[in-house]
């Protein structure tokens, strides 16, 4: 990518020990570059490793290999004090709007907590900043005295966003930030996030299992499958000409609002969707998607060689598939 990335992840690996002594490679060699001022969408089914990746970026987990560099600085080689300073520039909004707010605190304390933790300003300056932040996320000032249980899901998520913005971050990780919300509220929050991005010049890493939502907000999109990125590229190219069969399946799973077109497509898809019922194969040398793959399930090369993420002639994205050209 031409511009310098604000956040750059290289070959990140995070392994969890699982029972029976086996290892679970939750994130297995992932590299992403997030351009300054853009939104990078990360999609994948549950268990694909997207939240583990975000927790490694946030340094809530220590990666086992690979680097995370923010604004050109490698976070792994940093002292604890510098990581702490850097934390004010990277913030997070989680999925569960109520679990991410301390139930015994008032909204004003929750939003002001990052300021207090960094000892920024005196009490009066902080409460002025809290009022400013509530205004920024379009919550009435009267909300400041409320407790989280008195808020709706959408209001609670606005509070979580206000807290994330308290320290004037450059980068916000939105980990399934709208997934728990009603559809109408979700649209409001997505629009709010867009407005804030324009106003404050924020960079987002937007994580979701919902391709439609990711499409709405992201400029670049990566698709994760079992700890790997299997396709990544600009939104338009990814949606216009998906290279990887898994991306295709995901796109086809998004319903079309026109019933006659939807029915026509379902007829075409009939055979392919059945493929997802096949169980996952154990890790071996081959492509890890092949048990569910409508293209390469029986091909020799897919069983013996793990495909690398590389450009293909047919589209503008990088895809990890040997036969990427053949499916579109």
């Amino acid at each position, binding site marked *: 990518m031409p511009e310098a990335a604000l956040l750059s992840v290289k070959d990140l690996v995070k392994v969890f020990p699982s029972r029976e002594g086996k290892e679970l490679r939750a994130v297995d060699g992932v590299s992403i570059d997030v351009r300054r001022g853009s939104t990078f969408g990360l999609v994948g089914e549950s268990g694909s490793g997207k939240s583990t990746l975000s927790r490694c970026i946030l340094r809530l987990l220590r990666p086992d290999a690979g680097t995370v560099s923010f604004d050109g600085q490698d976070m792994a080689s940093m002292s604890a004090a510098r990581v702490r300073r850097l934390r004010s520039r990277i913030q997070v909004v989680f999925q569960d709007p109520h679990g991410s707010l301390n139930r015994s*605190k008032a909204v004003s304390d929750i939003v002001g*907590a990052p300021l207090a*933790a960094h000892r920024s300003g005196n009490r009066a300056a902080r409460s002025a900043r809290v009022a400013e932040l509530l205004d920024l996320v379009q919550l009435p000032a009267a909300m400041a005295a409320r407790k989280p249980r008195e808020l709706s899901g959408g209001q609670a998520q606005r509070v979580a966003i206000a807290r994330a913005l308290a320290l004037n971050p450059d980068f916000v990780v939105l980990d399934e930030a709208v997934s728990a919300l009603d559809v109408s509220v979700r649209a409001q929050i997505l629009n709010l996030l867009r407005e804030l991005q324009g106003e404050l010049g924020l960079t987002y890493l937007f994580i979701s299992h919902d391709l439609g939502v990711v499409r709405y907000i992201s400029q670049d999109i990566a698709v994760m499958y079992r700890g790997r990125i299997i396709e990544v590229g600009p939104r338009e190219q990814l949606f216009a000409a998906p290279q990887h069969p898994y991306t295709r399946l995901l796109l086809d799973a998004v319903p079309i609002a026109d019933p006659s077109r939807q029915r026509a497509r379902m007829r075409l898809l009939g055979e392919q969707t059945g493929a997802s019922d096949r169980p996952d194969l154990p890790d071996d040398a081959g492509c890890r998607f092949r048990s569910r793959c409508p293209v390469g399930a029986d091909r020799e090369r897919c069983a013996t060689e793990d495909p690398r993420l590389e450009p293909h002639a047919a589209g503008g994205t990088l895809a990890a598939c040997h036969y990427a050209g053949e499916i579109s």
Partner: protein
Amino acid sequence: MAESGTISVPTAARRRRVTLRIPPISVLLLLIIVLMCVFAPLVTPFGPNDVDPAHPFAAASGQHWLGTDELGRDLLTRLLYGGRLSLTVCAGSVVIAFLIGTIWGVSAAERRGFVEEILMRTADVTMAIPQILFALVCVAAFGASLLSLTVITGLLLAPTSARMARSVTIQETSLDYYSAGIAYGAGKIRLLTREVFPNILPALASQAVINAASAMILEASLSFVGLGVQPPQMSWGVLLQQGYGFLYNDPTYAVAPAVLILVTVFCLNLAANRLGSTRHRKVVRP
């Protein structure tokens, strides 16, 4: 009955409010017992060691509400003064158990893995030691005094507090507000003391009240077998033991302290139950 069925919703709502406002009977009873012990000199005209050899084992009367003991001392007066000591041991050991247990359990929850294993297995081993045996060894080593009794009881109760503290801390720190706190750069100590502690306090308080009941029984048992405070100091356990010797002459002598211990323990357990159910109730999401 049929009538109350039709208006069951409003009465249920009203009843819950009322129980929250008026302290329950268990708490009121405890308060009365504590206040009477604390203000014993105002409640009774006698001193705890005022002997009246002319009237040993006097029956209950207007002057001596519970009668007198073998030396003619007023039994009620001795119970009130003895209660001061019993309650002091009880309160002191609960505070010790709370402080040690909370630090113990929260550290274990925070340092998962090796440190946690060591801390919690230590708790298991401590709880497996017979309490009376442990107390016997300690009393032999440090002597039987108010202080040693309080510390021994507190140490014996600390592991239960530690277990409770660990489990509720793990519950809290797995919530996203804790992760968010780490992410915005708050230190762990700050998060634990300012954010987590207020949330786990109701559970810890409830455990502390249960511990108070255990401490009461433990103190009484130790005193009864002669490992508690030594006469002329007295506690309910000591009085129970002295009265036990005259069980057939004067049953009130032994029964009165026994009933007091029983009522106190019972009320403490009820109060702990109440604390656990109203304050530590899971927040229902709307």
